[in-house]
């Protein structure tokens, strides 16, 4: 009697647990099914670009063949054509110079400013912090026409050093904003202790803040890198001679104005030009995402 009474209540939760486990398994299958659909949607364009860049021209123009697959053998001729017969390598070199300079300038400006805004209050410092965030919200497509006149007055039209001048407007506000967030989260006791020990502000910044907030610095650098690598409207408006173009504009303008047989090289160019941000993302994904999400939540 007692054994039955003891077993009966135990059986019911067991059954319920089983049905819960079954529910969870179905939820999992459901999630995987739809995630695969979304992954196909998100990855189809880059996949199709890869396929096109490796396909022979002959196969590409066959209307009946499946455009999503390579049936008649791989070829690297599009990449070879891109490197040998176009200015692609010049675009690459220009982009690297511009991006590295912009990242360096951005980091110096925004780390200094974020340190002073988050720790050393002065007259108007909170207003400046808010102003930094507001300038981040001003899009480049609002400013390119007046900046065209500014760049012209510096004599930097059609010169990639003009990009080094204007790209910081895209990177500095956001980088300063996330660095303020990271610096504010450092405990005050740390720099107070250093001040008592006689450290100067520069020493505190270099020896304490930069090492402690290093993940934030990496995140800000990744942001500055990807933004200046991908910038499009400024170089589109300010550069036009092919020895000064950067990758985004160079790929879009100088490789496009050909007939259909250039599609392979065009896709090869777009992929190679997109590769550096993708590689950095693949290796530093967690920093990338931390930078992305901290913009709206910190500060």
């Amino acid at each position, binding site marked *: 009697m007692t054994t039955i009474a003891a077993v009966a209540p135990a059986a019911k939760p067991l059954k319920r647990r089983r049905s819960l486990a079954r529910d969870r398994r179905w939820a999992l299958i459901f999630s995987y099914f739809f995630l695969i659909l979304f992954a196909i949607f998100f990855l189809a364009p880059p996949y199709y670009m890869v396929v096109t860049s490796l396909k022979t021209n002959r196969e590409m123009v066959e209307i009946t063949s499946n455009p999503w697959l390579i049936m008649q053998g791989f070829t690297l001729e599009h990449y070879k054509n891109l490197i040998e017969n176009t200015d692609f390598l010049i675009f690459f070199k220009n982009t690297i110079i511009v991006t590295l300079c912009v990242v360096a300038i951005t980091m110096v400006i925004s780390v200094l400013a974020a340190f002073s805004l988050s720790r*050393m209050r002065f007259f108007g410092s909170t207003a400046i912090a808010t102003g930094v965030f507001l*300038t981040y*919200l001003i899009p480049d497509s609002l400013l390119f026409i007046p900046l065209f006149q500014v760049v012209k007055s510096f004599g930097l039209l059609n010169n990639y050093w003009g990009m080094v001048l204007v790209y910081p407007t895209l990177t500095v506000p956001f980088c300063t904003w996330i660095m303020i967030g990271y610096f504010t989260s450092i405990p005050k006791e740390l720099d107070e202790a250093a001040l008592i020990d006689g450290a100067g502000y520069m020493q505190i910044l270099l020896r304490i803040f930069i090492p402690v907030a290093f993940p934030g610095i990496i995140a800000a650098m990744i942001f500055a890198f990807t933004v200046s690598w991908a910038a499009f409207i400024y170089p589109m408006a300010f550069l036009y001679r092919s020895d000064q173009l950067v990758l985004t504009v160079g790929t879009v303008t100088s490789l496009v104005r050909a007939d259909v047989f250039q599609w392979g090289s065009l896709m090869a160019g777009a992929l190679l030009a*997109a590769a550096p941000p993708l590689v950095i993302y693949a290796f530093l994904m967690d920093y990338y995402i931390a930078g992305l999400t901290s913009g709206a939540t910190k500060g």
Partner: protein
Amino acid sequence: MVEATQSAYAPALTSVIPWRRGRIARVLRRRSTIAFFMCLPLLTVIGGLVVYPALYAINLATLNKAMTKHIGFDNFAFLFTRETFWMVVSQSAIFALTAVFFKALIGLITAHLVNNLPAKGQRKWRGMLLVPWVMPLSLSTLGWWWMFDPTYSAFNWLLALFGIGKVAWLSDPYWARFSVILDNVWYGAPFFLIMYLAALRSVPTDLYEAASIDGANAWQKFVHITLPMMQSIISITVLFSLIVTFANFDIIWVMTQGGPRDMTHIFATWAFKLGIQSGDIPLGASVSLFMFPILGISAIFILRGVAKRSREMQ
């Protein structure tokens, strides 16, 4: 304390000229002065390359085409008489609102799906789904452009499998509008996914456990727990995305250049066409200034949202 004693003794101890030099040195050593100098590069960049150009745009918009004399608001008056201008206004609104709605919806759905997975698989999926956001937009749009190619469209090939005839993706104005929105949704949805996934993880799990004990189903949990907890992050991302989408340039410029029949132009591309391509800088500046009101309003609400969110996070 140290500063106070120094300033009290300094005049008595030193003669007049060294005293004055000492005061300048002390001002330079002062915390707020150092702080100001550290901010100076930032202020130069923002003042010289953001605030000044923004004000200069207003000045430019009141000039005539040759930029020789001020003509007041004639540029704006001229724009109001152009049919294309009103088409650009409505297309900007359609483009931004539709794209942001679908981006937010897909972001919310995919964030939930990823959040359902076991913890160790999430990172892989998240990494894969964020690829569209990482690729430079102008370059991935080239891929979309090729997929919409009139003769060799990869989509038309797929549709043909189901017996559906060719779609003129970029030469029919309405399909072209659809195509640029599709590209924008593809590019922007991963951003929402990342933001919502981060927000979903910050919702305390005991709330869901308590709701389960009370017999709430999945939908009730979503409406009564998830949505209220994510409300501020949803509004911040939607407003932010509204600004970025409204001001988009890359997609439309690469894919359609505003055509066919100017039907896919939005403010940025039309301003580019008038200001840079046709060389009428004042008219282009006037067009881009029309973006300002909607950006300003969104910015105020974002600022309020961020302040609220950072209070919640503390």
